[in-house]
């Protein structure tokens, strides 16, 4: 089954005629990802890598039945692009663009939630269900199908976790990158229940980091997860978060201690295998699978 994307997805690239869009299109088609078209204003009627380009998202959806989109659009145009895709009825969105203004992220997040859609990002490395569909900044050759789910903010941390798991013979059902920005469309707490309900996922690796309180929201969903969650919290040794006077501490939200060490301790207190080094993830997964 996997989560968010699979063989039955019908995928668009928004910004397909740019260099990033073109290279994604070629890679997706080469890897068997069900890419059905692209969107680029005033480029309707062209094709890229053999898939049709449409002037806008509504036409693309009408013509192709698309339900997912990878958006690779300049940061100052990203808000309009995401709202356009959501208005056209797209239900799974990856916004790859970084440096999106936080108030734009707030608006797209709110609209996506109101429409019942899933927005990954801004600044998301995407989502991949290996062997089925790849809307991610991940090379198909580096990822194998398997029964571990991964949810992370960072792209490059997932590369290392995938490597560490592969050494022990594990592959992934789906890998979901939420995005590295302060405000993101989808959170750990949104993704865990999807993995919880996925019969192709045995265990979830959650990759956390300092700052904000999204990891604590994830811990609050654990009582409803009837499969193990292994937490890897990065940056245990990073210099303390730069606090902007006394406002900085509450600026992040109301989660309390947002350091990596506090988050690691919280996952352990919730009964999870939790580690602070990427080289320990594989072993922690083995321990979690062999408990009981």
């Amino acid at each position, binding site marked *: 089954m996997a989560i968010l994307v699979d063989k039955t997805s019908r995928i668009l690239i928004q910004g397909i005629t740019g260099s990033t869009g073109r*290279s994604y299109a070629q*890679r997706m088609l080469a890897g068997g990802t069900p890419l059905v078209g692209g969107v680029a204003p005033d480029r309707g009627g062209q094709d890229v890598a053999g898939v049709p380009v449409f002037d806008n998202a509504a036409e693309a959806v009408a013509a192709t039945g698309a339900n997912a989109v990878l958006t690779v659009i300049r*940061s*100052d145009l990203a808000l309009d692009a995401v709202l356009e895709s959501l208005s056209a009825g797209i239900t799974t969105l990856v916004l790859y663009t970084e*440096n999106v*203004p*936080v*108030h734009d*992220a*707030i*608006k797209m*997040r*709110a609209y996506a939630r109101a429409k019942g859609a899933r927005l990954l990002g801004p600044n998301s490395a995407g989502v991949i269900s290996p062997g089925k569909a790849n809307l991610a*900044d991940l*090379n198909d050759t*580096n990822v194998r199908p398997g029964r571990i789910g991964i949810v*992370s*903010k*960072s*792209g*490059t*941390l*997932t*590369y*290392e976790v995938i*490597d*560490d798991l592969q050494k022990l013979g594990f592959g992934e059902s789906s890998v979901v990158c939420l995005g*590295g920005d*302060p*405000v*993101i*469309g989808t959170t750990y707490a949104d993704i865990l229940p999807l993995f919880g309900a996925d019969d192709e996922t045995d265990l979830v690796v959650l*990759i956390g*980091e300092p*700052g*904000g309180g*999204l990891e604590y*929201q994830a811990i609050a969903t654990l009582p409803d997860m009837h499969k193990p969650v292994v937490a890897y919290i*990065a*940056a*245990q*040794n*990073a*210099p303390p978060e730069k*606090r*902007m*006077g*006394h*406002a900085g*501490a*509450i*600026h*992040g*939200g*109301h*989660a309390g201690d947002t350091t990596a060490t506090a988050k690691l301790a919280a996952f352990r207190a919730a009964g999870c295998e939790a580690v*602070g*080094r*990427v*080289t320990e993830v594989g072993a922690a997964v083995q321990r979690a699978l062999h408990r009981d």
Partner: protein
Amino acid sequence: MIRLLEHEGKAILRQAGIAVPLGGLYRSLPSDLSGPVVVKAQVFAGGRGKAGGIRFADDCAVAVEMANEIAIRPLNGQPVEDVYVEQRLDIAHEFYVAALVDRDIGVPTLLVCAEGGVDIEDVAPNRILRQAVDPLIGLQPFMVNRLVRALALEGPIATAFGDILRQLYAALVSQDAELIEINPLLLTKDGALIAADAKVLLDEDAAFRHPGRRAVPTGTEFELASRKLGVIGVETGPKHGVTAIMNGAGLTMATLDEVVALGGTMSGVVELHGATAHGPDRIADVIRLVHDVLDPAVIMLNVHFQFRNLATIAEGIVAALQRVPGLTADRLVLRLRGEKEDEARRILAAHHCDMLSDFGEACVLAVRRAGQI
């Protein structure tokens, strides 16, 4: 994120329609400022009052003398950027108000507290009232009323307080701010609400909507020089230890963790942040910077690409070996993983550099070469 000084923040409040005390920078005081004033160091450091950065003067002449003293001495280790002098007010009460982006719930949020003028971190969380604002409907009267009522305000003050909340929210959105905090918001003895301080954080990513908005970079010599090369450098410890160059924030954090966990000292880390697109010369420049400024025992390159070409990194390393005096292959630990690994390995082997592809092994080797295990 761009931090504003108090006087810059107050200009934003004034623009939003919120009253601030009459005042100006000490070298160009407004002519109509007279009587008792407050002299305030303009610094980015916290704890300004306790460190002697806020003083009182009976008139402007005395204030300027004080300002001259305050201006030359660092405060809590931070340089004093300027000194602001403003009218002193008769205080009846001090409130706390703020508008901010609450990243955990992903929406703008208003905060109010009846106990202003103190360190907000010292106030019990249940004394601070929060109102999240759904951006699809914006700030509505019921939200404002809830906050005003919770402070037990009535009559004209309640109306004026509500106006300030509306102005604060509008400014947060229109200025693309992450935080606008007024602490304290003064209620004067003659019944006016006036912002006595301002903390403002602006979003650098929204600069395209705000001509002239630009972050003033801060940091160590190494950090500032990194920024000029288009990479993100952070000094993480004493010099002469391990220094590591990575692609991606996540990989950077993980490498720092691993080296420290193995008992190594990390002097600094660099995140390439797409600098590979500028070609091998840029990579060589980054290695030169690390070498010259941090004088590390070991320079580690820990690069894991999905699609970019590792040969660019390998060529940059070779260029650095040829150009940087004192840099030798035995001080390099190279973990390059991804596309064109074989080509990168060949390029490096011709210059007597070994290349690893495993993250953990590379970190162990770096710490060992630095003589720390």
